[in-house]
């Protein structure tokens, strides 16, 4: 039998989330194989094999302590009894306030060094964080409610990441600096022990004349919490005016533009605050105010008191709540390719940090292909094009024509060279497209075509080493489907 992997080994997936307050890790084992119902490769029957308690993200003033993080990661890998070579995919992300520290990018590099090629590591990637939170918390719930739009608000220490999805697919994402930890207090009191730049702006914008060392009065706490609740309600209502004010503009990092037509979205929560909300909704007592030294419990109380925000708390409950991002990182950040790839030289992989320079459709004409390849030619280390077909499976004539046009366009590239040109296509047609474009590997030996990869609006992509004939693919630097400035 040819090597079509109907049945495969289990693979290990890893997720690491370094957030404003805490850092989490997750290791899952999943079966990589063909879903006989959909005909696509997928991770099946995931099992969480390691889920340590979250730890406080180690900060040293405005910097993340890299040595402490390195120790943390070594400890996680040791406890999970997993080596970096065993890791098939997953992701690591530095989020919220941690992503805004001076050395956040150094941290991402450290993660890549420690965990290996298989895991995409990124910092300050708010749309990706929103996407991951949705997938991690309510992808299953969303698929179980076909046609229902679900708006997930992932509320952590530094940011709120809204993501709207339907049928398990994310439609819109955003990010704002609404979080529990912009103001930090002595636990059990409202004596201010620290504030982020947004915390200071909040105090100023709301005319709360307190600084570090001072104690907020109840009315002042309520004022701050109310502002956040109004912001969350504005996100739900699609009310852009809230973020048009001076303070609103400052708080909004990535605008969230969702569909406002149609029936109201079901609302779910994730993140640390989300976990408190659902615990309280199920009858558990909230922790005492500022128990964690922040506004988490107050925010949760505010959400529970808001008719708009609390309307679906009992009827629409996500599978995972507190650690949605790390769940999403582990199980959803890696896409699995199809099995019939055009990969004449498998040793070209892995490829990291490949810019996604263009997205073309199967009906693209020569001019469009020429333009896309000009952009690709400008990247000396290789580039990626996304190829989207309207049809589930393009016809023979479509593939022949596209292959011929691509071949001709590649001949006209400004610097054809040998830098890899990766085509990611939605259809199960990678080998045919590649063979027609290269005349069955006679020309254009730098072309790689990876198929059955969903269309994703992103700036960069990582391609892992092939295993069992499939390639793990991870996107980062997510943009809105309508296009963000890179």
């Amino acid at each position: 039998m040819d090597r079509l992997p109907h049945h495969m080994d289990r693979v290990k997936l890893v997720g690491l989330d370094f957030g404003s307050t805490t850092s989490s890790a997750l290791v899952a084992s999943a079966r990589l194989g063909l879903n006989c119902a959909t005909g696509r490769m997928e991770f099946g029957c995931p099992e969480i094999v390691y889920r340590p308690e979250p730890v406080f993200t180690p900060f040293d003033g405005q910097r993340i302590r890299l040595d402490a993080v390195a120790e943390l990661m070594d400890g996680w890998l040791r406890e999970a009894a997993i080596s970096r070579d065993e890791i098939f995919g997953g992701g690591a992300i530095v989020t919220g306030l941690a992503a805004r520290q001076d050395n956040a990018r150094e941290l991402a590099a450290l993660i890549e060094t420690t965990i290996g090629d298989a895991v995409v590591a990124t910092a300050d990637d708010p749309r990706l964080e929103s996407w991951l939170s949705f997938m991690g918390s309510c992808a299953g719930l969303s698929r179980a409610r076909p046609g229902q739009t679900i708006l997930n608000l992932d509320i952590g220490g530094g940011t709120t990441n809204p993501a709207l999805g339907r049928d398990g697919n994310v439609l819109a994402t955003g990010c704002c600096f609404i979080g529990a930890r912009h103001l930090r207090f002595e636990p059990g009191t409202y004596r201010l022990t620290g504030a982020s730049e947004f915390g200071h702006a909040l105090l100023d914008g709301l005319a709360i004349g307190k600084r570090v060392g001072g104690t907020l009065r109840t009315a002042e706490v309520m004022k701050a919490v109310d502002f956040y609740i109004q912001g969350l309600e504005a996100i739900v209502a699609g009310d852009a005016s809230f973020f048009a004010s001076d303070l609103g503009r400052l708080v909004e990092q990535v605008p969230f533009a969702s569909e406002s037509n149609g029936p109201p979205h079901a609302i779910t929560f994730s993140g640390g605050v989300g976990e408190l909300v659902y615990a309280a909704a199920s009858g558990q007592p909230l922790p005492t105010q500022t128990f964690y030294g922040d506004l988490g419990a107050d925010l949760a109380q505010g959400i529970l008191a808001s008719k708009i925000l609390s309307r679906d708390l009992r009827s629409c409950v996500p599978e995972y709540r507190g650690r949605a991002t790390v769940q999403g990182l582990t199980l959803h950040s890696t896409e699995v390719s199809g099995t019939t790839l055009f990969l004449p030289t498998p040793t070209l992989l892995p490829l990291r940090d490949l810019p996604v320079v263009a997205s073309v459709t199967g009906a693209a004409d020569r001019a469009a292909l020429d333009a896309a390849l000009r952009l690709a030619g400008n990247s000396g280390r290789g580039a990626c094009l996304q190829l989207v077909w309207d049809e589930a499976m393009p016809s023979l004539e479509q593939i022949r024509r596209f292959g011929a046009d691509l071949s001709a366009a590649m001949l006209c590239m400004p610097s054809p060279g040998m830098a890899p040109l990766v085509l990611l296509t939605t259809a199960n047609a990678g080998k045919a497209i590649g063979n027609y474009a290269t005349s069955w590997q006679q020309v254009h030996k730098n072309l790689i075509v990876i198929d059955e990869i969903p269309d994703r609006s992103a700036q960069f992509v990582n391609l892992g080493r092939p295993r069992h004939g499939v390639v793990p693919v991870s996107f980062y630097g997510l943009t809105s489907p309508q296009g963000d400035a890179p």
Partner: protein
Amino acid sequence: MIVLKALSAIAVPEPKPDEVYEVSLFGRPYAFSGLKALLGAADLSKAGDRLCGLAARDEVEREAARTILSGLDLQHIYDRPLVDDSGRADSVMRVNYDIDHEVFKTLAPLTLGQVKDQILAKKPADVAKLSRGLTGVMAAALAKLMDVHELVLASKKLKRSAKARTSVGVAGTLSSRLQPNHPTDDLATITLLVYAGLSMGSGDALLGLNPAIDSVDNISAILRHLDHLRRETGAPTQICVLSHVKTQMACLEQGAPVEIMFQSLAGTDRTLTEEFDVTVGLLDEAHQMMATKGPLAPNAPQFMYFETGQGSELSYGKHNGIDMTTTEALCYGLARRYDPFMVNNVTGFIGPETHRTNFEMIVSNLQDHFMGKLMGLPMGMAPCYTLHSEITVEGQQMATELLTAAGANFFMDVYLGIDRMLAYFDTCGHDDQTLREVHGLKPAPEYLEWAISRGIFTRGEDGDVERGPNWGNPRIFCSSDAELKRLLASVPAAYGFENAGPRPANTVSRKVKANMAAAREATYTEIVPERLGSIAFRRIATGAASKTAHLDSPESGAHIADADLKAMSPEASDVQIIVSDGLSAEAVHHNIPDLLPVLMDGLDRQRISAGKPLLAPYGRVKLAESVGDALCPKLVINLIGERPGGDAMASRSLSAYLAYRLPEGETREAAVRFSGNPDIRYEYTVISNIYQNGLPPVEAGSLIAERVNQILKFKAAGNRLERTLSAGTQAAE
């Protein structure tokens, strides 16, 4: 615990030369040479026996044979063990002679006709006493003398129960084996199919899965998963993964929960050893291991599970000239040695070469059930079929009604009757519950109490058991709707869980039946050359002169018809392509127009020469070798329709068999060394599952062209090529 008698201690009479049995019926003389021929002619006509020339030519000849057979005494049968091709009684025959000689002594002078009359006339307890005195051949001979009513009546007297964790076969019960198969052993699908089955009151006999991959790791993992499901749901039953007995023994050795040990049996030693890789010695060892190490052994009197079915020996061409019913009875003689918990009969599974019609399948099932019971076995039945036979779901349902009346211990529960891995059709949980309600039966007693506690059944004040509020609702075992949805996402042919009483809702039945109809049509449709695109073919005939001949006789489609063969001579092409309908002409119609042009483009661009493609209606896989021998290309590509399953789209599935004609010399020697087969002439690379929802035809054409290049470049195909490619990849890394 039973003590297994050593084979050498079992006395078998010395074989005798065949004698001629003669009779004159209505003035017409009839003669049968040897007991095998007489037994064959005495049976109702079935495709397999016709194929090997054992069936009577007409009804009168059959009655002539039955007349002779009725007059033979049991001593006569005892004295003439049926022999293999070397003239010896093989080990299976020998085990059949492990009988109670005291009982036999009382029967020996009686004719088969007299014994038949006694079975019908005596009380159940007296009939049951006969079982230890009979060999399989005697049981088969009796079955051949009985009509349908007699088979049902006699079987009903012979109800036989067995016990592991639950009791199966107790009077007033009808159990089921839940078979949650999946083409890739996907645990999510297995979970949902187990939940669905349990919610219908199925699985009280067994949760038993046929695995896709027979490795110790995989089987152990599935066993542990089934064990987890059993514990999680609390269902009192037992579990089994139906892998090879050697694999299960290795799993048990490593601590996996092998509660019930399974093996398929055959009625001839050659089939058992050469095809199933099993000997009586190995089965003895497995039984001993279960008795000492099996998780249920301390408390369960029985723990072995066997499957049989008429025709397997014939389909392998290793039936020793014995008819299908008799070889089946010989399996029971072997199964009896191990006092099994379950014996399941899957007659109908193979295809039209053994059972073509509903009548043939129903009769064989009734015979098998009777013979098994007569030999003291706890018989479950799986009247089943494939779509390339003429057997239908209605015929299968008639079989189940008769078998339930006859007291079958259990049926299968394959969800909606469609086996998602084995591409055949069996009974479902709806059938099992319908039969319970029609015949006033209940599940196994231990299981019933649990099912009542879960609301699957209710017990009224009068003690009557009825379907409960949770019957047929797998959601009761899921933690959330989302979990149910997640599990459902990987289940092929999931047409819905809605029910109407104990039956699937009409909307569900319509989807099932429509898909089956389209799938069956794929088999019976003739190839239409105009639907194959623009590439010109040269047409050749195979040895099968018609669709019927093609389906009934697999061998006939494996070679070129004589007239065409004479006109063919070696050509100088690298590759010769054949397009053949195989078991689905629709697969050819739907894939070839896109696949073949890509393949031809690929060969052309890689400078690989190809002869004008051949169109060969009624072809089989091995036709590649006949073409290879005639035209002498380096490689033959046989593009051929696969056996249809229960899904209309999947029934358009094509396979590509790349048959590499091994050249003499170094390459052939390497292949001999690799395979261990000194006679190897062809090596095969297979690319399967070619259809729009699997491997799309355009992509398949491209893949095949690449594989051809690799085969010619490395002078190897199949696993030898894979090893070469794998070594190359590792070296590059």
